[in-house]
């Protein structure tokens, strides 16, 4: 089966760089699956889970927004933040979720509410990614 190279980079580091068979990314207009020989594409990503499959194995990553570029030979993800499932600090993510929820309870308008919502989404993504990894380890 043909594979392609994917680079997931943030401004601070290279998170992931390997040959994979399939990528599922959270695009702004919905989930987005990419297989080899995909047409060139450029899209913005939302906070969500990014899944890469490689030889029957999957790896899940939490990303918080960014860009995805499909080139003829490889795929580049420019993420604002990205973490592999095993790197996620669950207690910190949980705290962040609580903080964001508290902030949302106090009725706010405009930027603050938007920011809190975004923070909440990021925390939820992190938690769900970490949760999935834990469940898989138990099995």
């Amino acid at each position, binding site marked *: 089966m043909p594979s392609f190279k994917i680079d997931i980079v*943030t401004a*601070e580091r290279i998170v992931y760089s390997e040959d994979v068979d399939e990528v599922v990314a959270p695009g*702004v207009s919905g989930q987005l699956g990419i297989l080899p020989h995909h047409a060139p594409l*450029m899209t*913005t990503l939302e906070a969500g889970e990014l899944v890469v499959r490689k030889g029957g194995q999957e790896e899940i990553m939490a990303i918080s927004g960014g860009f995805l570029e499909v080139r*003829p030979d490889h795929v580049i993800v420019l993420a604002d933040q990205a973490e592999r499932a095993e790197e996620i600090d669950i207690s910190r993510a949980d705290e962040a979720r609580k903080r964001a929820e508290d902030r949302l309870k106090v009725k706010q308008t405009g930027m603050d509410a938007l920011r809190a919502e975004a923070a909440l989404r990021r925390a939820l993504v992190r938690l769900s990614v970490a949760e999935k990894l834990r469940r898989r380890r138990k099995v």
Partner: protein
Amino acid sequence: MPDIRKVRRRIKSVQNIAKITRAMEMIAASRMRKAQERGLQGRPYAEKIEQVIADLAALPETSLRHPLLQKRDIKKIGVVHITPDRGLCGGLNANLNRQLGNFILKQEVPVEVVAVGRKGRDFSVRSSCSLCAEFTQLSDKPSFIDTLPISNIVIQEYTEGTIDMVYISYAQFITTMVQKPVLHQLLPVQPAEIPGGQNVDYIYEPTAEAVLGNLLPRFVEMEIYHAILESIASEQSARMVAMRSATDSANELIGELTLIYNKARQESITNELLDITGGVVALE
């Protein structure tokens, strides 16, 4: 004849200085290595984003519609001036500040400074530049998020039209021995020229404008973050070199002083001997 006790005290104090500068050199060396590594890790992101922007800006329909790409009449210029917080790094701070001073003197329109780092802030205040924001006490290893307030203020001032052009001034890290103060244009964004024939027809989702609109602020943030990393690497390597030469001269000075000390000691011993023999002769 020099006072022996004073020379001995002097040697002691120079030795202490040498110890301190030696320690500072080693600290700077290890920090420099880390700063360099961080700079390298961010490089792929920087390269990719530059490439994508070049691709996008080359599209005819997106041509310069985004505010961050628009050229305007220049009524006011902003400069992001990135300097270290601390001194003891050779001529680095002086060079950076001189570059900023020369730049401001050459402009025909007012210049506003966004100072990052205490040394640049102090300089701007001293030379009564108009300072629109200052960021000091950034850590030695700032994360991308730490630098966002800086880029936010720049982007905001630019889109509101308070400033019509933004430059960034920082110390470029060339080698451990060489750091060059540079000053280049940040806004409006100048898309890099792409070599012909590499243009790929992309599908843009949702639209090219939306992607570009999201990408450009990121690009500015990234440029600033990158400049800060580079300036940290420069600072540490400049400090390392300065401290090494300080240690060397301290050691040299210790050598000279020891020579003086030994001579003085011998002289005094000789004098004492002469005194004693003189006394013995007088008694006989």
